[in-house]
């Protein structure tokens, strides 16, 4: 052997690497490319679940642009997106800092905090619906005992959407806490000791040292939460069912496609929502890769 002995199977790596992602690519094609193209086709038709789809050109899209309900749903989705992520990051950071120490019973506390993340979103929204019910909900009962008037959490348009945000934050806050906690635990100690010796105030240390080190994780949280929040459906089904000014994008597409059976129109909405998420997602993903490699 004259050349350095190359590892045996490494010569086949070019084949191997594609072989390994073969099944994934197949599933992606079948489950992503096909539905997207099919939706695209449907969005140019007036298909209503029966009969033959008739070609209507850009009519569905023209309707999307002029439809106030669609823009309202989009606005509400962005509102939910913003407030959920903002609250989850700030509160998650505070609670991660709180839990970032050794204390007796820490395993139990963490285990209990992890619960909301794993229990079924539908079950929990139904349960919150019961807990926050205006007449026999436990929260309003206790408020009544305290001499306060009942709060219509899920029965008035001005509050319902905020209550849904609350339920969503309740469910997903542990995600931010645990991710940020992992980041805090993995911090290089020497830099903090140096800062302490220099007499930097805790606030300064947090903004100058802790926060920049957590940046990749914060971007991960934002990326994943944007993706998950765009498809918020269960909390609506368990509470207002799209009524009381709480209709979000996913719910609207569901209503148009599966309640009114206006598949063509629904597909046009859906594709609109899809492009929007893809653009936001691509931007965030780029940031993420940059932040992860820039370590």
């Amino acid at each position: 052997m004259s050349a350095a002995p190359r590892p045996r199977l490494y010569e086949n790596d070019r084949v191997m690497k594609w072989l390994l992602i073969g099944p994934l690519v197949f599933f992606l094609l079948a489950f992503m490319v096909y539905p997207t193209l099919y939706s695209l086709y449907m969005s140019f038709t007036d298909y209503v679940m029966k009969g033959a789809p008739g070609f209507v050109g850009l009519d569905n899209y023209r309707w999307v642009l002029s439809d106030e309900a669609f823009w309202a749903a989009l606005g509400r989705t962005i509102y939910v997106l913003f407030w959920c992520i903002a609250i989850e990051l700030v509160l998650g950071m505070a609670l991660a800092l709180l839990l970032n120490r050794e204390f007796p019973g820490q395993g139990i506390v963490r285990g209990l905090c992890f619960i909301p993340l794993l229990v079924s979103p539908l079950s929990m929204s139904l349960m919150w619906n019961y807990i926050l019910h205006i007449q026999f909900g436990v929260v309003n009962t206790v408020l009544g005992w305290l001499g306060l008037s009942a709060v219509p959490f899920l029965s008035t348009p001005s509050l319902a959407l905020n209550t849904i945000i609350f339920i969503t934050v309740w469910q997903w806050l542990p995600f931010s806490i645990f991710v940020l906690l992992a980041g805090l635990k993995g911090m290089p100690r020497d830099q903090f000791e140096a800062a302490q010796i220099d007499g930097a105030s805790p606030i300064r240390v947090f903004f100058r040292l802790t926060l920049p080190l957590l940046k990749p994780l914060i971007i991960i949280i934002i990326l994943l939460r944007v993706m998950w929040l765009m498809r918020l459906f269960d909390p609506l089904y368990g509470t207002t069912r799209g009524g009381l000014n709480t209709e979000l994008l996913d719910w609207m597409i569901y209503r148009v496609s599966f309640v009114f059976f206006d598949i063509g129109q629904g597909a046009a909405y859906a594709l609109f929502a899809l492009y929007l998420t893809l653009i936001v997602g691509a931007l965030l993903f780029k940031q993420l890769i940059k932040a992860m490699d820039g370590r």
Partner: protein
Amino acid sequence: MRKALFWLAVGLMVFVFVFPVLWIYVTALKAPDDIFSDNPFIFTPTLENFDYLINVRPAFGELLNSMIMSVCSTIIVMLISLPAAYSFARFNTGNGHILFITISTRMFPGVVAAIPFFLLFRTLGLLDTHLGLVLLYTYFNMSFATFLLYGFFREIPESLEHAAMLDGYDRITILRRIVFPLIKPGVAITTMFCLIWSWNEFLFAFLFTRRVARTVSVGQSTFWGSVEIQWGPMAALMCIAVLPTLIAAWIMQRHVVRGLTFGAVKG
């Protein structure tokens, strides 16, 4: 003083997180009259609601369906995602583009996929079948599983494999003896997430099943009738449905922290 404040904050946090889940169990033990009573804390516990789920409106089939679909789809997901994640992590296959496309499936609003699949499944006769929902859950979990595993594979230093190769081990042996033992915790966490998300999934189950393949999530929603909501039996079914996830939360909290950072932080 500081200590008292700390415990107050921790106590409040735990209370807010746990109370609604606790309330499921409390509600499940209430008789219909107690559910609407003026004092929600005082009642005589009864198993009436569970009896309802066994004898009046059996829920066993729904639980079984959910179990079958979670397990089957998770197995398929792992078979697809493990090799793919390895390929992404080791060879940077597709220069990140395919990885992004994979992750972006998670961005699809659920209903975007639902429309074409509904029409396709109707043609193929897959509506309200186990196979149909297993395929959808595979699609649903595949991307996130790949992303999670990708993070875990990235944590295994490549030099380890090179060294083993120079020692004359072949690829299969290396994968089996070196890579797999190191990736095992990652596989465990990913499996757990896939199982739980399939178990909890509602939208697809709601749109694609009616009677035969109805899952436990859809089962819960059936108690919301056109006239009234049957909170008691609903809570009883909930507390059974939530139980496996509670156990999982307990097992996972120790290990999950590393997994959730996708290799961006060395835990």
